[in-house]
């Protein structure tokens, strides 16, 4: 059963992102468990890609570190299976989605990839290089395996917002500002106007990501949407603390979640 709706059932959702395998894959499970324990509502697990064109320097570097440590799609599937089954620690029961690039899925075989996702209990998929026009290649298979493909909406989407929102499943990922992922000191897009169009089109929840790092930013974003997504700020903590990042990430997630309560 798909669990994404559970993420949005307890007030505003806090959605942390982590690149799997940074600094290596043995470090990831403890961080994911710490995120769950600290109150994360949904976790985005990044499968590293060699050339992540939608990412800023922090997540790019995390991707490359993960790949040079030997992280592969199959090893990540195994790790998720262990997390869900409670092997090696407490079971992770909150919703989780994969975030990666089209080629990682396509080259694995889209159907084979999604079948594995369903088997190990993944609840969704985010592909930042698959816009509305190319959904037809992935979304029907995603639906078939009940691993919905998240729709993304950007500050430049304008006339495309309702077209995209109408077909959204799982949750909508609203990109806060122009550019790639990364911490920003301020977000100036009129997101309120965008979420109003989304709300008038669909009941699918909408979370905002890109550039969020402080509790105040997360709070402000969640005020006008259903949740806040944070990636680069977490990967910065991991880049600094390395293999022992779990307690620091847990503390950060708790602080951010508290700002949304």
């Amino acid at each position, binding site marked *: 059963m798909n669990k994404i709706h559970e993420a949005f059932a307890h007030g505003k959702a806090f959605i942390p992102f982590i690149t799997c395998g940074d600094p290596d894959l043995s470090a990831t499970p403890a961080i994911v468990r710490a995120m769950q324990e600290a109150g994360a509502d949904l976790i985005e697990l990044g499968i590293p890609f060699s050339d992540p064109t939608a990412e800023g320097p922090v997540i790019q570097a995390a991707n490359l570190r993960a790949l040079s440590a030997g992280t592969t799609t199959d090893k990540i599937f195994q790790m998720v299976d262990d997390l869900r089954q409670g092997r090696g620690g407490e079971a992770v029961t909150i919703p989780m989605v994969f975030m990666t690039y089209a*080629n990682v899925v396509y080259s694995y075989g889209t159907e084979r990839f999604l079948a594995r996702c369903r088997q190990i209990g993944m609840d969704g998929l985010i592909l930042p290089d698959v816009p509305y026009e190319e959904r037809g290649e992935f979304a029907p298979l995603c639906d078939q395996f009940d691993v919905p493909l998240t729709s993304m909406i950007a500050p430049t989407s304008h006339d495309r917002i309702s077209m995209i929102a109408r077909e959204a499943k799982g949750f909508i990922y609203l990109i806060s500002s122009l550019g790639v992922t990364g911490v920003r000191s301020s977000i100036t897009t009129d997101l309120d106007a965008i979420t109003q169009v989304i709300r008038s089109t669909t009941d699918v929840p909408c979370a905002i990501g890109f550039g969020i790092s402080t509790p105040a930013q997360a709070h402000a974003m969640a005020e006008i949407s259903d949740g806040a997504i944070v990636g680069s700020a977490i990967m910065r903590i991991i880049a600094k603390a390395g293999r022992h990042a779990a307690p620091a990430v847990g503390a950060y997630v708790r602080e951010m979640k508290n700002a949304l309560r």
Partner: protein
Amino acid sequence: MHESKGRFGLHGGQYIPETLMNAVVELEKAYEQYKNDPAFQKELAALFRDYAGRPSLLYYAGRMTKDLGGAKIYLKREDLNHTGAHKINNVLGQALLAKRMGKTRLIAETGAGQHGVATATAAAFMDMDCVVFMGKTDMQRQALNVYRMRLLGAEVVPVTTGTATLKDAVSEAMREWTRRIDDTHYCLGSVMGPHPFPTIVRDFQAVISREIRTQILEKEGRLPDAVLACVGGGSNAIGSFYHFIPDKDVRLIGCEAAGRGIDTRETAATIATGREGIFHGMKSYFCQDEYGQIAPVYSISAGLDYPGIGPEHAWLHDTGRAEYVAITDEEAVNAFEYLSRTEGIIPAIESAHAVAYAMKIAPKLPKDKILVVTLSGRGDKDCAAIARYRGEEISE
């Protein structure tokens, strides 16, 4: 419903972040409007003639023909264009289009630096700002072109991520475009990326085959038996092939960079060693590992050192209409030196890949066969690197 645009068989499409979608939609609309607009076409034709120096010559390489002892060889002299390569054809078209769209700033990626120089040139001439992304490795091996771009008023941004070559420069230019769209046109340099780029770039480069057709009919009264061009992303090749695609008797031969050999990891021969994938906005063939991680490719030629190939080439390969062969560094360097000595023409190391294949097949063909080899650019920029390859350090 979802309508995937810009397909060449399976290949092509628009695999880009949502942030860029309206920009490519707007570009497509503008292009559809201006491609049939007589005023736009007239202005472009005038720029081709008066600024770029078109038509470029179709030169009968008599000494090379005689020396190889087989098919007659003609060289399509794109190296004689202003800025020294075919890249100016596409750049003048796109810059003019960007101007019409109200853009004031051009960004571009560059490998060998030829596209960067062409973009910087058009920006200077049309009074636009210009930022060029170039891999740090390429900045070292093509230092002269870096200086030329800066001299022309462009900012050259070193890209240090990944292999610090063309692939990473494309990624960085795409990232920059998502940061700043309103006033900026991404002047993509090859027949790759998301629709409508492969089509726009092909149409602007198609002037090459349009001219070859007219010129060869004038000189020989018939079409050539084969057209050869080097392929990285594939813009000079598609330009050289395009108007011959319906002529099934004309062989179309793309020459990829094998680097140190297609049986090594140090290669950039996409058709020979790649498989179907999705990257840089398009579905096409890419050099990649079993998990879809893009391979760190290699070629002595910075312009061919790219892990993918344009979607229309992928389709021409699938349908068998064009053939793709792989040429090693060593073969290309030999051809670079051979053409210099034989015809007094120093070709770009990229173009030398096509010359190398002509050297292989011409001797085996009868004397009444005709080959046209596109010299996509001139080789001045490569002299220091080739000297280094031969163990000689030179300073300018």
